[in-house]
């Protein structure tokens, strides 16, 4: 059975400095509330993993919380660049990060292999690209046909964090809509946290429902609107204006830092109602400063 904790307690328990952490959500169910809580708790030297680092990872990279990023597409979907991501890679600001990049197909195969307890995944991919020489990929030969395919290493994060629509009181989780790699993230990770819009007495089976039994999850935390400005199908709407507005905020280092100070470190989240986390610590000025 998963334990149900306030978000701040859950993050404090599960994320450690230096961890390989995947906060997943393929355009949907992105765990913004959990990510912000990680920043408020001033976790450092994270090795972040995510197929589609978007605004959340822009924020995490922008305050220097990560030393490494593995990913496959680092853009603000439909808007443009992630300016903090670019600044970190192009100028090492606020710190240099090591980058490992894959294709989506490769990252998905890595998660599937991790969830399957296989050391590698196989795909038709990478052949002829310059990626092949700059990432962790090997060629493997089919023992039956002699064909050459790509092998990618399994992804086994220390911590997997995803958002979902609901959990019951035993910590069984159900999500629906675009499933992304949410299930694989939890099943591949050594430790897992699922934030949910709401906790209900019983999960009602739904079309498209993906259920993760509570015994496969370590911690569940209630975080209403916790994936905003992305969304939780059927409960919240994607806040496209917030994604567009982020482009302007993130272009400028000072504007970015001021925004983070006001909305993440110093005040209520801009995106969500954190009633699920009454005990969220307010970071001291010192810790917020260190975070930069």
């Amino acid at each position, binding site marked *: 059975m998963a334990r149900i904790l306030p978000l701040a307690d859950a993050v404090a328990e599960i994320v450690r400095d230096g961890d390989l952490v995947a906060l997943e959500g*393929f*355009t*949907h169910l992105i765990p913004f509330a959990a990510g912000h809580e990680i920043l408020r708790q001033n976790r450092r030297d994270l090795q972040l993993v995510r*197929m*589609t680092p978007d605004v959340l990872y822009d924020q995490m990279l922008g305050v220097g919380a990560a030393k490494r990023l593995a*990913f*496959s*597409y*680092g*853009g603000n*979907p*439909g*808007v443009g*660049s*992630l300016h903090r*991501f*670019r600044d970190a*890679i*192009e100028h090492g600001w606020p710190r240099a990060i090591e980058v490992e*990049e*894959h*294709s*989506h*197909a*490769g990252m*998905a*195969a890595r*998660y*599937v292999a991790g969830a399957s307890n296989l050391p590698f995944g196989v*795909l*038709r*991919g*990478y*052949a*002829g*690209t*310059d*990626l092949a020489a*700059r990432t962790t990929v090997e060629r493997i030969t089919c023992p039956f046909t002699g*064909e*050459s395919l790509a092998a990618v290493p399994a992804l086994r994060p220390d911590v997997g964090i995803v958002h979902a629509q609901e959990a019951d009181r035993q910590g069984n989780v159900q999500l629906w*809509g*675009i*499933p*992304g*790699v949410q*299930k*694989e993230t939890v099943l591949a990770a050594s430790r897992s946290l699922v934030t949910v819009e709401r906790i209900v007495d019983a999960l009602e089976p739904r079309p*498209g429902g993906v259920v993760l039994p509570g015994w496969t999850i370590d911690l569940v935390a209630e975080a209403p609107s916790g994936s905003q400005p*992305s*969304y939780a*199908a059927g409960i919240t*709407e*994607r806040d*496209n204006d917030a*994604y567009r507005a982020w482009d302007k905020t993130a272009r400028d280092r000072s504007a970015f830092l001021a925004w983070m100070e006001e909305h993440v470190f110093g005040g209520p989240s801009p995106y969500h109602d954190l009633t699920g986390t009454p005990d969220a610590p307010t970071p001291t000025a010192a810790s917020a400063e260190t975070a930069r």
Partner: protein
Amino acid sequence: MSAVTDNAGATVGEIQTIVAARRLRTAKVVFIGVGKPSTAAILAREIYHPDLVLVYESGTIGAKPRRVPLSIGDGELAETADAVVSVGEMFAYWVQAGRIDVAFLGAAQVDRHANLNSTVIGDHAAPKTRLPGAGGAPEIASGCGEVVVVVPHNKRTLVEQLDFVTTVGHGDGFAADGTPNSSFNRAELGLGGTGPSAVITDLGILEPDPVTRELVLTELLPDATVEAAREATGWDLRVADDVARIETPTPDELAALRELVSR
């Protein structure tokens, strides 16, 4: 795309979208990223081809969006899809399995053999401009039947030499007698599909030569010229003997596009 009134002539951006949509008249299943290609595919489904199946890499198969989504994971895509699958399944059972006829891709750089860069400008280890990266492109381009590339026509985009090969188009191409110019070609790399069939720009359409696979200017937008296209290309652009003039968007096409974008 510049502002126009509802009854004005089409902008080049609008024409580019309509040209892309027309490429889908005979497709059954199209794979879509964000931006212009998404608009083109939705338009094609609405005006040419109601059975066109739209597949988004977010896992939504047979989506029927009424609006142009900002991201490839907007809620309407899942709500209207015939099936919604995980990302792992999308790339394994659907893309890699070759179930998709046509894919639209964008890129920051395209070379004369339609290889694509969406990773980096400058050196990968010390980039001048870090781009978003591969996303699904490398395997989309080897899993789908053909690829249609949609890019702006300028020398920064159509370059002599890619800074990074993110996605293989036609590799190093072939000599006039059909022998490959190097081992960098689709067959030797084991890639599926036939690769890029067209690069649609805001000046015209480039298509690979049937033998050499070098891009050739084959069609021009209504107001574009061969000279302008050559001038805006980073290599010595080949031009077809009989460059066709792209048919001006019909009032119906233009009205449908504008109505779609305004929703």
